[in-house]
């Protein structure tokens, strides 16, 4: 029992120190390592898709496949809920 606690304490300290070190070494906000993609979207999204909202142009145009997956997940969840409550809605 006591050795288990000691092992857990050491593991916790190790994990905590990892998190602390990575938090101290974090990059400042708004300065990514690679920003070619972001710069491209900010420069060209308005001309290419004609949308003022760049976030929407990425979600529905550049990464439309991702949104299709999201919509399908929602659809599947709703199908599952209706199947779960089939006694009620009959």
């Amino acid at each position, binding site marked *: 029992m006591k050795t288990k606690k000691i092992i857990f304490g050491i593991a916790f300290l190790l994990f905590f120190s990892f998190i602390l070190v990575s938090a101290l070494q974090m990059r400042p906000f708004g300065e990514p390592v690679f920003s070619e993609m972001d710069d491209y979207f900010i420069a060209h999204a308005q001309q290419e898709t004609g949308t*003022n909202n760049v976030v*929407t142009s990425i*979600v*529905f145009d550049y990464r439309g496949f991702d949104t299709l997956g999201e*919509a399908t997940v929602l659809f599947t969840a*709703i199908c599952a809920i209706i199947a779960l409550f089939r006694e009620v809605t009959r």
Partner: protein
Amino acid sequence: MNPMSKIVRTITKFTYGIIIIFGLYIIVHGHLTPGGGFQGGAVTASAFALLLISYGNLTTDKFLKKDLFSFLESCGLTLFITLAFLGLGLTFFYNFLANSGGWFGNISAVGINPGDLNTGGVVPLMNIAVGLEVLSGLGLIVLVMAAAMEFTKKKENL
């Protein structure tokens, strides 16, 4: 579910239309202002939840129908996939309407501008499709769960 007090019901009567209009506004203006199909659909579904909670199950049954919601949800997802396949001349999810001059095809001004509703190509149409799916899907969840509550209460009383 029992209807809530008269104060709640009166306030609901005043506000639910405004909430639905605000949600539809977020859906339709998804390509100009922050928001989009998912967010606007969730806002609209919250109005349905408000109606259901304040009025109880029976009175809302007249215009909040399960079959209608089910139909609209399937329509939304089908419309979304159809719009994605229509761009298949170049690639899947190609924005074939943008800057074409036709439907939603006006050329957007570059830089900070107040925005034109008739821009964006398939993005507003996809926003409407996803919004339709989300609002009817979440409304359906709320309806079905309220019906299940009624069902279990009836079963416990027997």
